[in-house]
């Protein structure tokens, strides 16, 4: 029997994997991939809540679609940024993106 907790645990695990990718990778594109994984983990949770807690409505799915929209916008802008930076510095390694420092 698969319960809500299974789905939530799956979402949590996926989120942590994505977070690890976002925190521990050098390549900017890999970081964006990690963020995508995190967003998908959130979506799994939303849909699972929808299915188990309020099955007769589709609110969770609607919310998940909004997340997908935002994720699409985010990844488009993020990759454009990476391209732009790469053109200027010939580098997509985030370790060298440290202009924000003191």
């Amino acid at each position, binding site marked *: *029997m*698969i319960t*809500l*907790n*299974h789905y939530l645990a*799956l979402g949590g*695990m*996926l989120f*942590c*994997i*994505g*977070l*690890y*990718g976002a*925190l*521990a*990778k*050098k*390549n900017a*594109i*890999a970081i964006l*991939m990690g963020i*995508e*994984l995190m967003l*998908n983990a959130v*979506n*799994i949770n939303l*849909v699972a809540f929808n*299915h*188990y*807690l309020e*099955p*007769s*409505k*589709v*609110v969770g*799915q*609607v919310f*998940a679609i*909004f997340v*997908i*929209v*935002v994720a*699409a*916008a*985010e*990844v*488009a*802008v993020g*990759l*454009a940024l*990476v*391209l*732009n930076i*790469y053109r200027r510095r*010939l*580098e*997509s390694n*985030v*370790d060298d993106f440290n202009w924000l420092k003191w």
Partner: protein
Amino acid sequence: MLSTSTSTLVFWFLTILIVASALAVVLLRNIVHSALFLILTFVGIAGIYILLNAEFLAAVQILVYAGAIAILVVFAVMLTRRGDISESNLFNKNYLAAGVLCLALFILNTFLIGQTFWTIKSGEPPLNNVGAIADAFLGRYVLPFEVAAVLLLVAMVGAILLARGVNQDQ
């Protein structure tokens, strides 16, 4: 509807697929491989949506993520390629601390999920899933819907501007 035992089987299969390919995304050293496993992860998640009676969402997942975003990522990889591609996706110096942190977060999260009591409701999902979502978007959530459209437009214009680069002469 699948029978309970079948759905259990499918759930575990998909879970293993998703977790394994997600780990591959993060752990592999070649960014192109990572991108391909990302697509696999997205497809697995689409399967989970079907399992949860969200067929429309599964379709959107395949179209937007596996279709558009993954392709975008591959494009970006191609455009920024430099040096040895098999060493293109390395860890930074934080990898140990980040690993501990993520593990701690996962354990904590799982504990808390286990401690939480959910009021499970049983009920029939709407037969016409797409119609219900359309009613929600064009009814109650019409304003966020329109805002999302504007957001997409803005993101598109911003992405074009950023990717094209500002002409330095002007």
